[in-house]
């Protein structure tokens, strides 16, 4: 397959996943903001921007991190390449370029999301509740993903889409968890308090994993259980280990189909093995924030190996 086609497919997946994450971030933020405000906290909305890695871009354009501005920035702003609107527009444009590599159903799902987005953008903001925007985004992200899984040929194109999803989701889950770090950083004594649990629960809700968590673990919500669930539990669809397993599987499929193994396969396997050996205690010994930062760096490095190997067209 053309490298450019593979690249387009990969980015369709990354952008759709990223749109969903932007919506989930908004959801986390709005729920955390519903807490009675506690003096001495860093502004909760600010923590969102810190975690999503674009606090600077926001500050330059909007100044104060108040809810309405953050909504604009994370959902509607076409100057923010990670906003829901930017991601869906770019994903659909990528889809248009590689129409021949998609089924009619996948194209329909991408195109419908885009057409509806254009309608949303024309509505007065007062009519658009935040919860409606986040639900809308997740619904369309699910429709695209569903069309891919249900209708697409399981060839290398499918692998590149899934690599995009896996890499983006791994990065995004880590970042969403890191929101907690930024929220709690100033006051360590809150750890283990009711407030702490409330925030962890909110995080779970934002990942649509609240009920799943209770089924899997039961009882008290603790940092250790949550970290296990979102990092090390292979049953959780968004956990870091699930993402890395998926990435590794699809890279192995590629190496089999192409009859060639590269650094990408080796790196993914090394990450997977390391996660399998990791215990929750190890994570807290290293420090959750440090662990997540390292994971985000490793994921980015794997992403660039995938790019250099398959997507750049420079392989000889």
């Amino acid at each position, binding site marked *: 397959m053309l*490298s450019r086609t593979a690249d387009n497919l990969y980015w369709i997946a990354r952008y759709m996943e990223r749109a969903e994450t932007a919506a989930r971030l908004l959801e986390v933020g709005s729920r955390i903001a519903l807490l009675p405000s506690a003096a001495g906290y860093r502004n909760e909305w600010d923590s969102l921007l810190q975690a999503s890695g674009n606090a600077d871009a926001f500050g330059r354009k909007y100044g104060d991190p108040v809810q309405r501005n953050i909504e604009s920035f994370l959902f509607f702003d076409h100057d923010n390449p990670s906003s829901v609107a930017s991601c869906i527009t770019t994903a659909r*444009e990528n889809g*248009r370029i590689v129409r*021949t590599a998609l089924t009619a159903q996948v194209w329909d799902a991408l195109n419908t999301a885009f057409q509806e987005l254009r309608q949303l953008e024309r509505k007065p903001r007062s009519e658009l509740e935040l919860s409606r925007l986040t639900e809308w985004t997740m619904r369309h992200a699910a429709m695209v993903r569903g069309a891919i899984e249900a209708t697409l040929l399981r060839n290398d194109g499918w692998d590149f889409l899934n690599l995009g999803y896996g890499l983006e989701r791994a990065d995004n889950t880590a970042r969403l968890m890191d929101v907690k770090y930024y929220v709690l950083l100033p006051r360590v004594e809150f750890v283990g308090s009711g407030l702490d649990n409330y925030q962890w629960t909110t995080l779970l809700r934002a990942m649509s994993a609240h009920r799943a968590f209770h089924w899997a673990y039961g009882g008290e919500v603790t940092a250790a259980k949550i970290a296990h669930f979102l990092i090390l539990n292979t049953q959780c669809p968004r956990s870091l280990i699930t993402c890395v397993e998926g990435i590794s599987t699809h890279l192995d499929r590629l190496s089999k189909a192409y009859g060639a193994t590269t650094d990408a396969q080796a790196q993914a396997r090394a990450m997977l093995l390391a996660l399998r050996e990791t215990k929750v205690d190890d994570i807290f010994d290293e420090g959750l924030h440090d662990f997540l930062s390292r994971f985000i760096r490793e994921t980015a490095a794997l992403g660039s190996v995938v790019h250099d190997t398959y997507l750049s*067209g420079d392989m000889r």
Partner: protein
Amino acid sequence: MAVGPGAVAVTQYFNEMYQGGKVRPPYARLEDWMKAMPAELRTLKQAEAEDLFRRIGITFAVYGEGGDPDRLIPFDMFPRVFTGAEWARLEKGIKQRARALNAFLVDVYQRGEIVRAGRVPSRLVYQNEAYEKAVAGIRPPKGVYSHIVGIDIVRTGPDEFFVLEDNCRTPSGVSYMLENREIMMRMFPDLFRENRIEPVEKYPEILRRTLASVAPEKCSGEPVVVLLTPGHFNSAYYEHSFLADLMGIELVEGQDLFVEGEFVWMRTTEGPKKVDVIYRRIDDAFIDPLCFRPDSMLGVPGLMDVYRSGGVTICSAPGAGVADDKAVYTFVPEMIRFYLGEEPILQNVPTWQCGKADDLRYVLDNLSELVVKEVHGSGGYGMLVGPKSTKDEVAAFRGKILADPGNYIAQPTLSLSTTPTFVAEGVAPRHVDLRPYCLVGERIELVPGALTRVALKEGSLVVNSSQGGGVKDTWVLAE
């Protein structure tokens, strides 16, 4: 004349369905179909058709017009019909013309016999902007320069067909021929049971075979064919991706290709893959920045070197444009006689060259009846339509012609045929033209069908989609 303009239109133009109050045989079954369709059903069907087009994604963007890039081209559900016998004659004429145009191209880039014989003026060929000096002396595989020849044809009577112009470079619109049929078959399956209509669906397969048949001699094994597009911002991008998909070939942009050694390669996820035949949908000027426009971002640096040394075939071959020039057009009947030793089956529109004294006298005497065009003009600029102009306009234009006669040609105002078309009030005659796509490789082939363009505005003779034209399904009945 003591009749209103409406009456003139009815009597003056050839109506392909009705003749002297009677239905012509190819349309026999369509009359019942038309009468049995109540207005509500028609509206419903029209909406269904539009929905299908939008879902499939056929859209048409017009350069420089702004507006919605996802605009639909209007589709008229009333088909246009040819009998098998009518088509057989058209087919012979089209293939004859395609053969002669290719013979001309091979000739003018080599010995130039037709110029030496004095049958075509040297200046018209060698001073022509479309004459590509960079390919002089090259004989492309199978002696084919133009692999897809689009010939625009108008009809003025039962047996009168005229060629308006030839398109030897990259004629577009064939996706409409295929999609119009697809949509008609989905919406009116009964029509296809009642009428024996020749299928057009083999076009992509034949195109692929045609392209593969002109692979360079250096190619061993199954040739790798690609379609080269300027990219997704191009107004015809839908067609490019549609054709690539149906042919099962890669749709590439310039950035996907590179030259190394004596071949062209494409960048794939498995490393470089050699390309043998490039069906390009970009202009000569852009295909190789090292050879033509240095500012082109769309092309492939070094491509022309590989082409010249026989490492890759480019379809259509660079330089093919010299055969479809407006001034060269006049000489196509001469080409047919010179290269094929045959008489032309399809006529050119009679053209008077104001540079010739006799022609000039005729043109000036009949100015109010004629269409006068600048030789190198296009898009309807610098043009006089005699019957639709005032006396003052005609007089002013006379002065312009006299000042520089060589810059003008004149043609009669053609009475384009009409076919019934669905309009707001029901069904009414509208003017149409015809564009068949003739494929030239090892063999010359033509699917029984074409693109019919229709001028949707009453009385209009302009069928261009940029100016309110639409498209129709075009049927050829099996004998």
